[in-house]
């Protein structure tokens, strides 16, 4: 039997465009696997020459799913250029906005993109293995997902004026304070959203039994984990120190978030527009690390809200050290939804939640600024340099999916080795290869700061490189 290459193109139910190629040896075993991100965009280049205060809104255009995450990281980088400490009220409102964004994005990832696999089964008919299939099989669950995402988006709208690409987060703070009416509207919606989150968590925990094989093989290997933690080591999405944790659950180091350059490096591979980051002290590929919900719940010492804390304790019991299987990204995502709701409630109950002092004004006081925050998919870094007049001369963005790239590639290989055999391709095999990517909830339009669409294509190639079979999934 000749060596072959299988290409899954496009990868479906993810955000952006990608394909996967699997190389099989003479025996039909998977030898190598690549996750190719096929879109290119160029934000870092075309922002050059623009005034820095346009950056939050300009950079937010990278993505329609998580514009808020970019707004936050970008505005923080701009705060650093202004060299101001923004008002406490603005920090609180930015935190609420960021959590609302995480809430809606997690709801999208879980209910819309992954529940079809989890509810209907990895091997179910691909024609109905989508959110419409979920609506038919379990309408209540589909409704829950839609409602939860809507609530997150609505909080964004009530705070920032619109759901997608609001311009409300500005260098120095936010555009306007929160009104009492909107605070009350948000608070009124929390109990229903908490009930949905709890239902989803209970369901997922019950279903986990059915996915033992996936849990064992879905990017389940030791890596480092990275993310922001608060000064006391608690779960943090807005600002803090960057923690690296090893697979055994030991803290490797806590760094200042603005010094990322000292411990992170990026390399580019010829097969993908998505750069790969790694932890410098260990080099590449040993310095592979993961970010996002799984990483965040692994690195923290505590959660800080009552119900999410309980769930977190249960979650951490899954493994002795860090929780290693990427299948548990789903689980971590649900716990974070619970946390986000509880935390938003806490923030809005703050006595100064309606404080009208929400913006600091200054001109260019630094020629360089770095902003780091936690986006739904992991740590997001915006780094700008400006000239004396505040025009951008250089920009660098490191996006969650870039941090996860090395782990995703290894995950694809692991799943493919486990499930894909010989030259007989079944749709269910390939769906698992895609599903491991979905656990990471990659956002490819963000991570390439590039252009594109995400659905999957698998190519089967001989060792000479000739194409034997192609499988498209939609």
């Amino acid at each position, binding site marked *: 039997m000749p060596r072959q290459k299988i290409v899954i193109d496009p990868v479906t139910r993810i955000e952006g465009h990608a394909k996967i190629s699997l190389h099989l040896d003479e025996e039909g075993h998977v030898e190598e696997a690549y996750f190719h991100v096929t879109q290119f965009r160029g934000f870092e280049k075309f922002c050059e020459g623009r*005034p820095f205060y346009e950056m939050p809104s300009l950079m937010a255009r990278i993505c329609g799913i998580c514009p808020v995450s970019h707004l936050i990281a970008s505005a923080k980088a701009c705060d650093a250029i202004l060299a101001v400490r923004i008002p406490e009220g603005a920090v609180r409102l930015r935190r609420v906005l960021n959590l609302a964004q995480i809430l809606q994005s997690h709801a999208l990832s879980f209910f819309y993109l992954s529940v079809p696999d989890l509810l209907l089964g990895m091997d179910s008919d691909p024609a109905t293995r989508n959110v419409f299939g979920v609506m038919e099989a379990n309408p209540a669950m589909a409704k829950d997902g839609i409602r939860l995402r809507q609530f997150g988006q609505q909080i964004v709208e009530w705070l920032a004026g619109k759901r997608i*690409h609001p311009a409300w987060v500005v260098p120095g703070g936010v555009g306007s304070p929160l009104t009492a009416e909107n605070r009350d509207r948000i608070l009124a919606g929390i109990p229903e959203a908490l009930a949905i989150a709890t239902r989803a968590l209970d369901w997922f925990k019950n279903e986990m039994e059915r996915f033992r094989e996936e849990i064992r093989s879905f990017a389940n290997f030791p890596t480092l984990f990275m993310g922001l933690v608060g000064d006391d080591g608690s779960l943090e999405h807005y600002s803090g120190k960057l923690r690296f944790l090893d697979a055994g659950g030991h803290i490797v180091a806590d760094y200042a978030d603005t010094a990322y350059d000292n411990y992170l490096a990026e390399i580019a591979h010829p097969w993908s527009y998505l750069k790969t980051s790694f932890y410098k002290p260990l080099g590449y590929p040993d310095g592979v690390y993961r970010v996002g919900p799984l990483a965040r719940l692994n690195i923290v010492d505590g959660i800080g809200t009552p119900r999410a804390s309980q769930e977190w304790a249960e979650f951490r019991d899954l493994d002795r050290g860090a929780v290693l299987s990427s299948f548990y990204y789903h689980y971590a995502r649900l716990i974070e939804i619970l946390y986000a709701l509880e935390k938003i409630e806490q923030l809005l109950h703050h006595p100064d939640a309606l404080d009208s002092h929400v913006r600091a004004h200054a001109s260019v006081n630094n020629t360089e600024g770095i902003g780091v925050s936690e986006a739904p998919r992991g740590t997001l870094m915006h780094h700008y340099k400006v000239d004396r007049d505040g025009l951008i001369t250089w920009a660098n963005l490191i996006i969650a999916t870039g941090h996860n790239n090395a782990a995703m590639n290894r995950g694809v290989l692991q799943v493919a080795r486990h499930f894909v055999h010989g030259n007989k391709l079944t749709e269910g095999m390939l769906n698992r290869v895609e599903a491991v990517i979905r656990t990471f909830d990659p956002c490819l339009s963000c991570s390439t700061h590039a252009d594109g669409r995400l659905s999957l294509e698998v190519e089967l190639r001989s060792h000479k490189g000739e194409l034997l079979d192609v499988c498209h999934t939609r």
Partner: protein
Amino acid sequence: MSAHSPIRVKTLTIDGRECGAREDQTILEVARENNIFIPTLCNLPGLSNAGACRLCIVEVKGVNKLLPACVTHVSEGMEVTVNSERLAKFRRGILELVFAERNHVCSVCVTNGHCDLQSMALTLGMTHVHFPYRYPRLPVDASHERFVVDHNRCILCSRCVRVCDEIEGAHTWDIMSRGVECRVITDLAQPWGQSESCTGCGKCVQVCPTGALSEKGKSVAEMSKRRQFLPYLTLMREGRR
């Protein structure tokens, strides 16, 4: 004998409506007095007329070319057409050329939602630009302490030039070069921050129809222009002459 010669009254029709006008009035002024809408971008009450944007073109019976209403004076028996299929098509075309000429990206512009160019496109029903965009590489001058000029968003209406000359009296702004090379400049094309004539009054920023001139630090969609001052200033200065 009086020092003033008496101003004569002329009668004309605009879109078939009979209108009375003073002989020193323009078609645009008479149309506005009679609540007849003629689109304009470079015109701004309180400033002189430049005839720069050509959006106010109208048809005059017996004249075989289109005339800009803002600089065409009335005459007796004039028959003016302001609204016709042909004019609407030309006006949209002019507007499309304005959009194609530079880099007008509304979604990330400081004046998004408060922009005369943007609202004019809506008013005239411009849905697409049928000309290829030029995408010129134009600089942003942020050297001034409080203001920024972004040539990507300039439509060369010359409002800034006129307000600076006629109202502030500084004449910091002017226009250099010709055709597609045209650009507004401060002093002798020096960075704005180094201009010796600029008083920093900011009137140019407020009269600018787009996001070309804006206050520094204003974020996307935050820059709305205040122009209420203009008629008062004009009135006060004329009164003192």
